[in-house]
Every structure is written in C-alpha cells, then in structure tokens.
C-alpha cells in the first residue's frame, strides 16, 4: 500500500493518462503535418503516388506557385476575406454585445438563440447564401428590384468583385454571434460601479466607453480578433460550396486552391505546398496568440 501510494504521489503516472491521446494526435496530426512539409518538396502526382520512392525536387513546387497568378490572387483574397470579415463581424458583434449588456426583458433567450448561425454546418450556410444571392431566384435581387434600386438582377456570384463581397457577407453572418458572445462575456466582468462613477463625474457615454470599457476589455478584444483571424483564415467549406473559387479562379482562398490542386488536378505536391504556406501564416498568428494568452495569465 505504501509503495503504491509513493508511486501515485510521484507525478509520473500523469504520463499514463496523457499517453493515449498524445499518441493519437502524434499519429493523426503530427505525422501528417511533417509529411505534408515533405510532400511540398517532392513531386507527387497520380502516377508517382504508388511508387515507394518519390522524387525530391527542392523548392520547385514553390517556385512554380510563386509564378502562378492564381496563387497570388488566392493569397490576396485570403487576406482581404479575413480582414473584411473581421472588421464587419467585430464591429457588429461588439455593437450587439453592448446592446445586450444593457439588460432588458427577454435579453437572455434572444442573445442565446442568436448563436444558431455559428452552430450550423458551413455547407448549409453556403447553400443558404448561394440561394439568397442567386441571380434569378435570390431574395436579395428581388428585394433590390422591388424597391427600385436596380433595374436588372445582379449576377452576384458570377462577377469576381461581387462574389467576394457575397462570401464576406456569408462568413460575417457566421462570425457575428461568436464575436458577440465573447465580447458580452467580457463586458459582464466590468464592474457596473466603474461606469456609474464615471457618469456621476460627468463623463459622457462615449467618453466612458473609450476610457473605461475598451481598456478593460482589451485582453478579450485581442483574443477575439486573433481567434477570429485564425478561424477565418482557414475557412474552406463556405467558399468551396458557394463559388468553388469561381468565376475563373478569382475567389479562391489558399484552402480551396490547395484542395483544387490536390483533388481536382491531382498535383498532390503543389496542393501540399499551398497548404504549407497557409500553415506557416496561421502558425505565426497562433504563436503570437498563445504567447499573449500566457503573458496575460502570468501577469494576472
């Protein structure tokens, strides 16, 4: 009994608990990451997929990609898409969080139900917005025509600029509840007394917001923006279903371009290379995010 106790007091038994999950993740996430990096330096296509030794080509895939205008468009699209969504979903989400924080009858259930867009599969969201933006049956065209803003229906998803706009609108719809709920949770931690005292001292609402609410909410705001960046930057399903990169490869994100190269054109190595570019950018942001979360915890 004593020996067993001593063994248990020794923290090493912790390994036994963590090991199964760790092995699983090493095999099904760690190994694929490494092999994806290797794949980017090889030349693997349909014919070499089955061969045991795959030709090593160095940075050849990356060189081809850098000369490819589609990659450049996709890279720009990914950033424009991410920043556009972040700005919209953050400002609308923040406004809603402030609104719901005022407390009124029915605020809680309504706030809760507004989470639904964030929960439903992105494939369905893509279908919904493809339908609403469609040229002949879309409610958006029908509404615009009804109030006389446009004479002819707009081909939203057939024009590069408006298609990008439609994608940002659809993804913002998913992101609003996410931003709202996190910012709301942050707002509830700010003591009411602080803003009340400021009001007594004659501060305007805007002033109290700038000088009290925003500074106190800073850690939450930074977390929301960085998480939002990570989630948005890797979006795949939405664009794949809504436009599949079209028209004429103008709306591809890095994620959909990678998929097209690997699974439509069977250039597995080029697809992997694009995914690696996406990965490096995401990893950089993730490390920044983690560092910031840890610093925050240590400071607290």
């Amino acid at each position, binding site marked *: 009994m004593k020996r067993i106790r001593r063994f248990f007091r020794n923290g090493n*038994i912790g390994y036994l608990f963590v090991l199964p999950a760790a092995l699983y993740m090493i095999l099904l996430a760690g190994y694929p990451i490494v092999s994806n990096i290797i794949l980017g330096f090889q030349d693997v296509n349909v014919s070499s997929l089955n061969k045991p030794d795959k030709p090593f080509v160095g940075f050849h895939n990356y060189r081809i990609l850098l000369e490819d205008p589609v990659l450049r468009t996709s890279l720009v699209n990914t950033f424009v898409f991410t920043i556009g969504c972040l700005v919209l979903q953050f400002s609308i989400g923040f406004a809603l969080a402030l609104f719901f*924080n005022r407390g009124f009858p029915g605020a809680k259930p309504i706030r809760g139900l507004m989470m639904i867009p964030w929960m439903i599969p992105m494939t369905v969201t893509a279908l919904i917005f493809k339908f609403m933006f469609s040229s002949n049956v879309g409610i958006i065209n029908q509404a615009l025509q009804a109030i006389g803003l446009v004479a002819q229906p707009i081909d939203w998803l057939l024009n590069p600029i408006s298609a990008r706009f439609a994608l940002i609108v659809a993804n913002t719809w998913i992101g609003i509840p996410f931003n709202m709920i996190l910012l709301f949770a942050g707002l509830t931690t700010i003591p009411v007394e602080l803003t009340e005292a400021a009001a007594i001292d004659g501060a305007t609402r805007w002033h109290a917001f700038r000088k009290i*609410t925003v500074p106190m909410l800073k850690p939450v705001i930074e977390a929301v923006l960085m998480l939002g960046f990570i989630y948005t930057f890797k979006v795949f399903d939405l664009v794949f279903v809504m436009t599949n990169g079209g028209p004429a490869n103008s709306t591809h994100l890095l994620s959909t371009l990678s998929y097209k190269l690997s699974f439509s054109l069977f250039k597995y190595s080029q697809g992997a290379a694009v995914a690696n570019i996406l990965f490096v950018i995401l990893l950089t942001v993730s490390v920044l995010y983690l560092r910031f979360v840890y610093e925050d915890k240590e400071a607290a």
Partner: protein
Amino acid sequence: MNGRKVSSKRSAVGLSVLSIVVFVILMFPIYWIVVTSLKKEIEIFKVPPTLVPHELNLDSYVAQLKHGDFNMFGSFKNSFIISASTMLISLVLAIPASYGIARFKFKGKRVFLLSFLVTQMLPVSVLLTPMFIMFRNAHILNTQLSPILADATIGIPFSVLILIGYFASIPRELEDASRIDGCNRFSAFLSVFLPIAMPGVVVCVVFSFLYGWGDLAYGMTFLQDQVMRPITAGIFNFMGQYGTKWSYLTAFAVVTIAPVVLIFVFMQNYIISGLTSGAIKG
C-alpha cells in the same frame, strides 16, 4: 453604458422590441430556407417573393422518402454514425488526458498542453492530402473509419482544453477525503471527479458531435461512394446535380440543421459556456 437597470420601464420595452427586430433580421436566412422548402417550385420563382407559402407543399420532404435517386435519410444516418463515433473517440481519449494534465506534475506537461492548443488551430487543408495518402496505404479509404479518425483530431484537443479547467478547479481536499473513505485513485476519479466535471463533459459531447456533423472536407474526400457519405457531402453533391431545384435543396438543408437546432435549444447554456471558456481560457 453598463447599466443593468434601465432608467424607465418604457425604454426597457423599447430595447426589447429593438432586440426582436435585430433577431428577426439576423435569423431571416434560416427562416427563408424553411419557408422555401415548403413552397412549390413555381412559387419560389414568384416576384415579388411570398413571405409565407401560399400553398403548403411537403413534396420536397416526401420525395426524399419515396424514390431515392438521392437518399437524404441514408446520408443522415451516415452523418450520425460519423459524428457519434467522433464524439466517443474524443471523449475516451480526452477525459484521461485532461485529468492527467490537470492533476499531476510531470516533465513535458507544458509541451503537451501547447501541442493540443496548436492542433486546435490547424487548418483542414494541411492534414487532408497526407491523410488521404495515409488512409489509402492503410486501405481504410472509402470506409467511414477515415472521416471518423480525421474528425477526432479536432474533437480531442478541444475536449482536453475544456476539461482541464474543470478538473483543475476541483479542490485537493475533496480528493484526499475520498481517499480516506477508502477510494482508490480510479474509483475516486469515477465517483468524485467525473461527476463534478460533468458539465464540461457535456460541452465536449456536444462540440465533438457537432464537429463531425459539420465536416465536409474529410467526408467528401475520403469517401468516394455516395451511399457512405455524410449529409454535408450529400448536399454538395445534390447542388451539383440539381443546382436550381431549390425546393429540394432547402429541404435537405433544413433536415441537416434540424438536429443542430434541437441540440442547441436543449443545451444552450452548456454550449455558450463551452464557447466562452474554450476561447478565453484557451
């Protein structure tokens, strides 16, 4: 700004009304596909559009039951199998792992924690091609095992991170007390820790299930056979085949989101706590 008490009753009512207006605007897309799925194809094309169906039409749902050139309920079942299995794997592996990280001190603990955090942020694109090759070599491509194994790589890190918070919050005295009562470590885990962490476990059940339910990339890439594919891949397929048959497509979408909405309505509080703690504590 932060006033939880609103100055007068009248302005409180005004805010309530305003919140309903906001709610209606934001939820309109969901309302719109439900309504469309109940319309006849001709009515969908009507200008100006009708906000409620003039003639109730359930054909889009019934047609799926009768003749199946595409079997919606078959793919519903596939999605269910994939999501439930993903959930099981995630929980079976994440519960002990989070318990171990939260309750024991051992070397490399921080490394484990950090790797779980990083994998949670991984894009599908990075894992897709190597997994495809890996599953192909293991001869499990075109079996439902392949999307299940892949989906669990999202469910496990998420669940570990959520549960660590719950396990860490349990005071050591409680554990010591249960030991004095004659529990061994394992029975203490079952009788003391697990019940306290139950709300966290429910969050993990819901989220790992929904990760599986929402997945499109893994399901459509690893499964070539339409009969085995999940409902998300079914919708995508259906859109390619019947791109303009919106009554069928919207019915399909409604069936896909129905379980999500049901889960949400019953588990709202858990889901919101999971989302906020997962992201902020992250």
